[in-house]
């Protein structure tokens, strides 16, 4: 605690205070701008309810997809050493830094009606991903995957291989080691990675509108509804924004102990 009593140079204190204000002011703006008296009415408006329902379903689906694909990837990156591993790792991280609209264009080129895989899906299986909730899940999982992979990979590295090895020397089979030793050891990281991936999926906008379009009740998630309703029904848009803010703060609060624990 003696860190706090140390004198802070003004050259640091002032920009630090400005930095805090810079982040906090837009959040305060969202709260003060919100039409509190009509909030309940705005959130129960049919358009808002459809968007909320869709957002919850699709972001949950995207988290499951990111989990199913991201956990094996994280294990591979943490435990295996192979040629081109760092290159593969960088590729998996690309969606984290790629502009989401560009991600949407890429998804169209791959899974669109005339895309690399999408053409086959549409012609032979009759599966259309664009303009469907499945397309939203795909777009959200694409941008959320790296968040799960980095979180879980870091935890797997930190946990080390000693316990796994001990289990192995005691005769446990690889699958048992994974299930009984590795996964329990990184349990909190799995939860944190899933929470981060879910939050990212919930807020996804650019890839969704580019790839899955903006179909009411089918692909119009909360961020898309906020964008569209800003012109039409600003109170509903602000109410939905406020709800997204509350969700973000909740996720952060849930992860707080984990991050503070790491910082000390």
């Amino acid at each position, binding site marked *: 605690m003696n860190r706090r009593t140390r004198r802070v140079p003004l050259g640091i204190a002032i920009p630090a205070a400005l930095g805090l204000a810079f982040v906090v002011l837009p959040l305060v703006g969202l709260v003060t701008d919100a039409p509190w008296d009509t909030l309940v009415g705005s959130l129960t408006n049919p358009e808002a309810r459809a968007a909320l329902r869709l957002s919850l379903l699709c972001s949950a689906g995207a988290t499951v997809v990111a989990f199913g694909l991201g956990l094996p990837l994280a294990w591979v*990156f*943490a*435990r*295996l*050493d*192979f040629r081109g*591993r*760092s*290159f593969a*790792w*960088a590729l998996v991280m690309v969606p984290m830094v790629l502009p989401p609209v560009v991600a949407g*264009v890429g998804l*169209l080129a791959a899974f*669109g*009606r*005339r895309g690399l895989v999408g053409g086959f899906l549409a012609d032979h299986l009759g599966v*259309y991903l*664009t*303009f469907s909730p499945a397309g939203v899940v795909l777009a959200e999982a694409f941008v959320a995957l790296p968040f799960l992979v980095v979180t879980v*990979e*870091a935890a*797997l*590295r930190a946990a*080390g*291989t*000693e316990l*796994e*090895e*001990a289990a*192995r*020397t005691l005769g446990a089979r690889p699958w048992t080691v994974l299930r009984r030793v590795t996964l329990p050891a990184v349990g909190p990281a799995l939860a944190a990675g899933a929470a981060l991936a879910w939050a990212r999926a919930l807020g996804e906008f650019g890839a969704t509108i*580019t*790839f899955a*379009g*903006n*179909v*009411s*009740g*089918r*692909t*119009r998630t909360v961020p898309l509804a906020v*964008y*569209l309703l*800003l*012109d*039409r029904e600003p109170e509903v848009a602000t109410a939905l924004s406020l709800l997204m803010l509350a969700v973000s703060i909740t996720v952060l609060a849930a992860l707080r102990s984990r991050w503070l624990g790491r910082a000390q």
Partner: protein
Amino acid sequence: MRSVAPAAPADRRSPALVSSQPDYCHAVPHRPSPRPAALWPPRRTAVALLAVLTIFAIAGCAPSNDRSRLTVAIAASLEPAFTVIVREFEDAHPGIDVTLEPGSSTALAARIADGAPYSVLAGADASRVASLGADLAGPVTVFATNRLAIAVPPGNPRRVRGLADLARLRITALCDIAAPCGRYADEALTAAEVTLPESRITRAPDATTTLRAVTRGDAEAAVVYVTDVRSAGPAAEAVTIPPSANRTARYGIAVLAGADDPGLAREFVTTVTDPRGRAALTAAGFGVPGP
């Protein structure tokens, strides 16, 4: 290589488990390899970063900054015609830089009411422009008209002949009902007695992005302006909507109260409504009201 190889009988008891020293770092036989922190060595990364930044600098900083600016907010559908008009205006006014700000007329009007620093607004609905009231610095002039058309992918794969055919498509792109093109499209569908379930409509904020769902995406048709389909070139074909169901958009232009140089803004409006502007609008497919 597996980081934990199946242990051979000889080293089954790994040193970590028998050593009395707590020096796990050296005792563990197969440590996970270090995290792939950087793909390239720092120097190459720096060179690559520099190259990318240089490209941005060359692309972004080319125009000189000592010219005065005129920012014109326009309905997205006006962009091709106004690009021509702006070129002529800049040729006639050396030292003036005109920036076009395309978007949904409704969104632009809302931004202007919020204080966006535009000098001129040219919207797809003259009455919406007029409704800005005190934010205007002059009268609203109706300078162009437009009609709706159905845009379909090249070759018209779903054989769309009219609005009624939209009912059997998987997905149709329409403008949002807040934008003039969306309101006109809904009126046209009502007039043609066609009902589309919302689950088969994807909505975009303005005409250009609505058409993009057909030219770049998977939408099977879009209801946009005739001029939008024309400017898309070979990427889309137009299916005519008969006059009985069609709607006429009346475009209005006005100088805004926030204009830095109202005189220059008025000159721009004059260019749009004089024969040069009318020629560019006609060439793009707009109708122009009589002089």
